């Protein structure tokens, strides 16, 4: 009895599926027409990533890396000195504080020393957040350095960071990659004589990308959780 009912059900479902094939029956795939548009859009995407203008001499790789290493050393030394001062300070004020702080703070201070490359990423991230917020809110392009110029500059710095050990942190690397795309789109949106209002669809793509990838919240999270430059 059950078998009979089961068979009937199966037959009914087969018939339903067969009859439903007439619902929104697709025409033949217009593959060439769609491919032409996809290929054109891909071409546009490749071209959208602008080639930065020739970099000034002080940003060239041969100069930049030694400078970055030197800066890292300075930062490291500075942190070391600050750490020692912090340890020494309480003992001058209150002898009991020395006893309480000394054993715990020494290892903590050395283990939490920020990675200089991540430290170097912070101001780039902060400036990118400011720029994206301004562009997103439709703020007027300020005089002086335009949105577009700032985006190109930040795009170059983002790429440098992506090529540096800062990108060994997977979360930061992912964020930098997303920022690279967002900044390239920002360049497109803001380029031209009437930048911000110029290209609605580009703007929409930029804004969709910012929302879809939660770029601004991730930027803020990185800025609040990452190493701080305060006090250096």
């Amino acid at each position, binding site marked *: 009895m059950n078998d009979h009912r089961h068979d009937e059900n199966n*037959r*009914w*479902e*087969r*018939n*339903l*599926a*067969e*009859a*439903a*094939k*007439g*619902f*929104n029956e*697709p*025409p*033949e*795939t*217009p*593959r*060439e*027409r*769609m*491919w032409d*548009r*996809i*290929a054109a*859009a*891909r071409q546009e*995407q*490749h071209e959208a990533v602008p080639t930065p203008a020739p970099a000034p001499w002080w940003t060239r790789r041969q100069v930049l890396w030694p400078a970055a290493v030197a800066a890292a050393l300075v930062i490291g030394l500075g942190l070391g000195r600050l750490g020692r001062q912090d340890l020494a300070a309480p003992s001058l004020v209150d002898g009991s504080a020395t006893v309480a702080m000394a054993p715990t703070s020494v290892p903590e201070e050395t283990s939490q020393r920020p990675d200089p490359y991540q430290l170097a990423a912070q101001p780039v991230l902060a400036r990118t957040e400011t720029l994206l917020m301004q562009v997103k809110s439709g703020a007027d392009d300020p005089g002086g350095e335009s949105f577009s110029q700032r985006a190109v500059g930040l795009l170059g710095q983002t790429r440098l960071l992506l090529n540096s050990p800062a990108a060994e942190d997977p979360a930061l690397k992912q964020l930098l990659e997303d920022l690279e795309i967002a900044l390239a789109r920002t360049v497109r949106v803001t380029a031209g004589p009437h930048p911000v209002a110029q290209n609605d669809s580009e703007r929409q793509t930029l804004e969709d990308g910012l929302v879809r990838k939660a770029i601004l919240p991730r930027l803020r999270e990185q800025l609040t959780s990452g190493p701080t430059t305060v006090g250096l």
Partner: protein
Amino acid sequence: MDREPRTGHQPKRTALTERQLINRASKGDPAAERAIYDTHVDRVFRMAYRMTGDEALAEDLTQETFLRAFGNLDRFRGDASLSTWLYAIGMRTVLSGLRKVRRLRERETDLEMAPELPGRPRRDAELRLLLDEAIDALPEDMRVVFLMHDVEGFKHREIADGLGITDGTSKSRLHRARAWLRDYLARYGFEFTEEDAS
């Protein structure tokens, strides 16, 4: 409506493995992108058309699916097959496109106006229109599973990946969708016979 012949551009069948194709496409190799497109475009387009019933919209959503996929290929880890990953992008793109467009089709379902299908009895024409109406009226979560599984032949695993649900949920939605359609048709006194389906 122009129709390009399906044989117009056959995918190149070379000795490249899927992984090699992905690697090349992720570096922007147009030939590799085209090979991936040729392999999967039919299924993505059919899915988009089934869900939207609108050719222009289905084309847009198909294009968007491939653009998203190509733009994110470097993040494809290979945990699932490329087809599963690609169809998941397709389903999400189609569903989000549908929600954005809010293009709910308003069918003229006046049965008196419905054209007789040549060579078929009137009952058949009515049943088909009624079935279209019933599928249109299905709640979206059930409709997508029904169309993808029963009509387009997707597996529950693929549907689950695309919709971000479990296999079990996909099966349960399909079961509810069939029961819902059965009730809907029964209200109008229709039952399927082998002849209806043929």
